[in-house]
Every structure is written in structure tokens, then in C-alpha cells.
């Protein structure tokens, strides 16, 4: 697409209109978008076309459409984070990520559906209804960035942005057969990213290929003085790494604790095959032991709810968003109580209550305090493992896409789906999911996860591009080309 634009074979306006048409065709079935910004997208496309005609030097992604998770603020465009408490809110400012993608000339076509405040693994917790997996419309696309992943998978946009607090980019990428990356914590600014769990949240790119994803990653990353946790240093060249496609002599560590029991047979089979492919390309496969990972899920479901119970205190019905029960004589406290009851969904309330409990005096040391110490042990496990291997690998999720409603009444089963992705967030490192094929038993996509140390994001792209090239030549095309056709024309 980028080449066709540069050569003048197609204009950004044509490309954007084609994607808006595709959204009109298939989104009534997929429901990836909460808001489609037709006018804003066509305006940006026209601006890029004018700049190109004027002979200006443009970014390789200029004029390419993108779907934006509704957790990032975009000035003047409705932003809800999937919650009723922010229904109708129009941000007064652009998040840093949005400023950067606008400056690169990327065209934002709309805001995508998500689990409310990114709390969930299926996009079923959105206050605006679920998103459906383009591979099988009776199944979830994963979550919480399910709308973004489904939009890319359904050819509604070639690129998307999500956020990943416990796997919310990598797991939906796996379940929809695309590439998704959670960058190193601090590599992408959190300014304008509506907070769920501040020490774990990180926005990142989705694409249909490793190189597309790298190009978008490169636009998003960088130091931002508006985010005090933003890394101020030299950023790795992920685009060069994605063009390298070479794993000769690299050491790849298989995490003993993240495979085998509990993993669907088709998931394990595709994972094992991908390992053989990497070995045949000249990588050395070693097994590494991360004993503390067994406790990662428990630690995550204490730390994230604790941070969210504090972060979501800002939704107090006073300055923006929903206000309920503001009748004559009603107190501020009763208005807050009523608004937060009406505005928050069930899962959000469950996590706020759990966090409130874990932080309350008398329980703090036993729950939140212990979870923070487990976090230290997980960081130490990674440090030991990365001393033996350049990257670590595992299946991205234990299963392929599950049915809508299958786990929605069983929070523990839902939480278990994040078991392989959560350790990355707790340690603040980076991870990628890329397609490893289809599981034999259900013909649904399987994700292969690659993990690298903090600020070594380039390694993800180097290994990912090598594996992708080998698999694509084996399959005779990208996995996404095997997705069933949806209503409209491609």
C-alpha cells in the first residue's frame, strides 16, 4: 500500500474511502468500531494527498488508514474507553501517540471497541456490546483490544493501535491471526492513554505483517516529557530488525512453565512446529526455568485491581463524564455513588472492589505487598533466563478463540487465558505475538509469543520476521489470506 501510494498508483483518499466502504459492509457483523470518523479521516487523507502532489517528503505510512483503540484520547472525537461513564465525552487534547501518528500522516478511520477500561480478555465487557471474531462470528476476538485486532483481521484497516496491560494486544492478535506487539514499558508515552493499571499499561501496534507492525511501532515510540515514566534514551531500530529476517546463532529459550498442561493440543502443535522452523533457520533452542511464573497470574490480579481502584477514583461525576442523581439537595457523595453505579459495568466494579480490599489496612501486606514481592521474583526469573537466551518464547494464549459467552460467567477461567502474557507486563519488558498457523481441531489461528529484555524490542522483530518469512513460504501466503470471507468484497 505504501509503495502504491508513493508511486501515485492510488491516492490516500481512494484508499481511505475503500476502507470506509469496507467498514460499512462488514462492521455490522464484526462490530469492531465504536465510532467511525468519516469526515476527519477523509480530511487527513486529502491533506496527505496534497502534500504528496506538492512533492513533500512523507513518512512511509503517510496516507495509510489506522484503527485506534478507544482508550487513547483524540481531540474532538468521542472517547469512551468502552464505558458508559464516558459516553459522549470529547477529549480536549490529543494523546502523545495520536499526535505522533497524525504527524506521520497516518489516517485514523475510527475508534475501536474494547473491554471497559481495558479490563477483560474477550471484549465482552464493553458497555456497547461485544466485538465478533472475523474468523468465526460466534467467537470472541480476545481482548481487551479486540476491536482493534478484529478491524485489522477483517480488512477494515491495515494497521491498528491497542494497549496491553496483561496481554491485551498479544492475546487478541493471536486469536485473530495477526501481529501485535507490546513495547517495553516506558517506550511509548502514556500521556492521553486512559489509565487502568499505570505500572503495567503500554500502548502498541497491530499489523498484518511483522514489517508493517515495526513501521507503526517506530512512529509510536520515543521519549515524552509529558509522561514521567517515559524512557529517555536511544531507541532500538525495529524497522531495520524487521528487514533482517535472520536468527542464525541466536539462542531461543523455551519457558518450561508456559507450555504443556493446560494448553490446547493444536496450540501446542503449532508452537512446537514453529520452534523446529527456528531451529532449521540456525537458531539454538534451549529450555529455561521460570518457577515464579506459576504465581504471576495471582500477583497480576492483585496489582492491576489495586492500581485500578485508585486510577478510576477520578470518575467522580464532577468535571466530565456522566452525572446521575443530581437533584436539589443531593450531596456530592450520593451523586458519586449513584453515578459510579450507573456508569461502571460489572467487571470494573468487581476489580475496584477487589483492589479496595487488597489495599485495605490489615490485608495490604498479605495481598498487595506479597504480589509486589512476587513481581520481584518474576523479574529475577527473567534476568536468569535472558542470561541463557537472546529471546524467550511460548504460545501466546493457551487456547484459540473461545465462544461468546463461554467464559463470561466464570472470571477465573477468563483470567487463566492471560497466563502466558502477564509475566511480560509484570517485568516491564516487551513481547510480540505473530501467527503460527491454524489449530487442527478448530481451524482457528494460533499465536506464537516472543519476549525480549527491556529496550531490546528489535530482537522481537528480528526473530519474528525470520519465522514469518519461513512460515509464509511454507503456507504460500500470509495466514490472514486463509480467513473466511465476510459479507462484503475485499
Amino acid at each position, binding site marked *: 500500500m505504501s509503495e502504491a501510494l508513493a508511486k501515485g498508483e492510488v491516492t490516500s483518499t481512494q484508499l481511505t474511502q475503500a476502507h470506509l466502504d469496507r467498514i460499512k459492509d462488514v462492521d455490522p457483523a464484526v462490530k469492531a468500531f465504536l465510532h467511525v470518523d468519516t469526515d476527519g479521516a477523509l480530511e487527513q487523507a486529502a491533506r496527505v494527498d496534497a502534500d504528496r502532489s506538492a512533492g513533500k517528503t512523507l513518512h512511509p505510512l503517510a496516507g495509510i488508514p489506522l484503527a485506534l483503540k478507544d482508550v487513547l484520547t483524540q481531540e474532538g472525537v468521542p472517547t469512551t474507553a468502552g464505558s458508559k461513564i464516558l459516553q459522549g465525552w470529547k477529549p480536549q487534547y490529543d494523546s502523545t501517540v495520536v499526535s505522533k501518528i497524525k504527524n506521520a500522516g497516518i489516517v485514523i478511520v475510527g475508534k475501536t471497541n474494547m473491554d471497559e477500561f481495558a479490563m477483560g480478555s474477550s471484549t465482552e465487557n464493553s458497555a456497547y456490546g461485544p466485538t465478533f471474531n472475523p474468523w468465526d462470528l460466534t467467537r470472541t476476538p480476545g481482548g481487551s483490544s479486540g476491536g482493534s485486532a478484529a478491524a485489522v483481521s477483517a480488512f477494515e484497516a491495515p494497521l491498528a493501535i491497542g494497549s496491553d496491560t496483561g496481554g491485551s494486544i498479544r492475546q487478541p492478535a493471536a486469536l485473530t491471526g495477526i501481529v501485535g506487539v507490546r513495547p517495553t514499558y516506558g517506550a511509548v508515552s502514556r500521556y492521553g492513554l486512559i489509565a487502568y493499571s499505570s505500572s503495567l499499561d503500554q500502548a502498541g501496534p497491530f499489523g498484518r505483517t511483522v514489517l508493517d507492525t515495526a513501521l507503526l511501532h517506530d512512529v509510536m515510540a520515543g521519549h515524552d516529557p509529558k509522561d514521567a515514566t517515559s524512557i529517555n534514551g536511544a531507541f532500538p531500530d525495529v524497522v531495520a530488525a524487521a528487514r533482517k529476517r535472520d536468527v542464525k546463532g541466536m539462542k531461543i529459550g523455551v519457558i518450561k512453565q508456559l507450555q504443556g498442561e493446560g494448553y490446547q493440543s493444536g496450540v501446542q502443535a503449532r508452537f512446537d512446529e514453529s520452534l523446529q522452523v527456528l531451529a532449521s533457520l540456525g537458531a539454538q533452542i534451549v529450555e529455561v526455568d521460570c518457577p515464579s511464573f506459576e*504465581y504471576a497470574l495471582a500477583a497480576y490480579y492483585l496489582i492491576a485491581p489495586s492500581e485500578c481502584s485508585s486510577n478510576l477514583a477520578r470518575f467522580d461525576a464532577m468535571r466530565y463524564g456522566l452525572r446521575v442523581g443530581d437533584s436539589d439537595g443531593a450531596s456530592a457523595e450520593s451523586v458519586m455513588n449513584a453515578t459510579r453505579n450507573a456508569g461502571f459495568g460489572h467487571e470494573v466494579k468487581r476489580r475496584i472492589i477487589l483492589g479496595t480490599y487488597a489495599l485495605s489496612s490489615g490485608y495490604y501486606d498479605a495481598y498487595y505487598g506479597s504480589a509486589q514481592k512476587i513481581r520481584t521474583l518474576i523479574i529475577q526469573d527473567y534476568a536468569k533466563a535472558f542470561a541463557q537466551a537472546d529471546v524467550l518464547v511460548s504460545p501466546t494464549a493457551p487456547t484459540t478463540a473461545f465462544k461468546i459467552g463461554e467464559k463470561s460467567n466464570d472470571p477465573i477461567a477468563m483470567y487463566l487465558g492471560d497466563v502466558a502474557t502477564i509475566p511480560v507486563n509484570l517485568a516491564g519488558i516487551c513481547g510480540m505475538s505473530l501467527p503460527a498457523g491454524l489449530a487442527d481441531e478448530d481451524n482457528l489461528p494460533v499465536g506464537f509469543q516472543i519476549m525480549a529484555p527491556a529496550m531490546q524490542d528489535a530482537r522481537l522483530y528480528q526473530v519474528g520476521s525470520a519465522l514469518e518469512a519461513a512460515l509464509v513460504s511454507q503456507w504460500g501466503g500470509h495466514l490472514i489470506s486463509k480467513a473466511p470471507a465476510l459479507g462484503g468484497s475485499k
Partner: protein
Amino acid sequence: MSSLSRDDVAKLAGLARIEMSEEELVSLASQFGMILDAVARVQDVDLEGVAPTSHPQPIRNVFREDVVHPSLTPEQALSGAPAQEEQRFRVPQILGEAE
């Protein structure tokens, strides 16, 4: 087996400023034991002498120059307000007594 009563959940909901229906209190209380058992696994590990991690980056004290930057106009700042009056946020009464 951990458990939390309906009244415990009601107290936590009060602290979190969420007014919950009776049905929701009962349903949350019934799920809470299971969730607490799952997360209580963090106590199964010997954590003696392990330092807690609150944040993955070793960043400390990030300062910036004390200079004025452009910010939102009052109109922009109030554009999302549920209620406003005389260029201010209008909020419900915050003290106990009637007007």
C-alpha cells in the same frame, strides 16, 4: 476457603463510592471467595527478604523546568462538564447541611 459476606462487600463498595444493588452485592460476595482463593496463592511462596517492586523502570525524580506552557482555555476545560456556572464547574453540595 476465603469468603466475604454481603455486608463486607457493601462496606468495600461504600469505600469505593459505588452504590450497588442488593442483587449485585450478593452476586459479588458469592464470587469473591473463589477469586480470593486464586489470588491468595501469592502467600504460598517464601517471600522473606524479597524487596517489593512497585514499578518496572528504575526511574527516579523526573524534574522539568518551571516554565509556563500553553494550556486549555476555560471554555475547553469546561467543555465536558456535567454542569457549569459562571465559568466554573457546578457540583452538588459537598457539606452535610441543607442549603
